[in-house]
């Protein structure tokens, strides 16, 4: 199984990448995905998270093919 992970704005610049594919076995949750993608670092609490372009709250379980996005506070308008 695999998910696409996207990073935006200052987070994208800090991490130095904007998109990647992460493969995993069953039972992958958001916080573990972050750690797997970021050398075991815990997920910063201030980040906003979306799965399949919908905001999610909490440590939701992911499914094969999901598009996951991590980004800082939004500042549009």
């Amino acid at each position, binding site marked *: 199984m695999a998910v696409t992970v996207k990073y935006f704005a*200052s987070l994208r*610049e800090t991490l130095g990448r904007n998109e990647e594919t992460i493969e995993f076995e069953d039972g992958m949750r958001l916080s573990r995905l972050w750690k797997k993608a970021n050398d075991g670092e815990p997920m910063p609490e201030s980040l*906003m998270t979306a799965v399949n*372009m*919908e905001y999610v709250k909490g440590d939701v379980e992911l499914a094969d093919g999901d598009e996951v*996005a991590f980004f800082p506070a*939004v*500042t*549009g*308008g």
Partner: protein
Amino acid sequence: MRIEIRKEVFEPYREVAAYQKILAITGKAGATCVFVGTMRDFNEGSSVRGMTLEHYPGMTEKHLHEIAAQAGERWRVLDCLILHRVGEIRIDDVIVLVAVWSAHRGDAMDACRYIIEDLKSRAPFWKKEQLDDGERWVESNTTGYSEE
């Protein structure tokens, strides 16, 4: 309902007038509320020269449609138009336009306010400002009022 992300400069009042012409709401829309957000040359105490607006293609449009739909559930809305710039923005460029048509003023004004407040706090856009001495990501939007 029209919701668009624009890479090019637009003239907001021409857009509102043109969009209204194609709406079949003659005689029904007693009230229109329009909000236009424009690039200022100052922010949080600094002089700003320009900025880059990033968004999340796909989710941004989806989220704006959801906001508009929610406004339509809470108030009586006949139609709405939301345009938002991305890319390189210069001083005095229009960043965002929200227009809401209703039979009555309270519905149009409340719905317009709701949409712009949600857009500011929840729609996935990010601003990076060009200052005199470098760049900075805007960390959060202001409350919407001048600080004394």
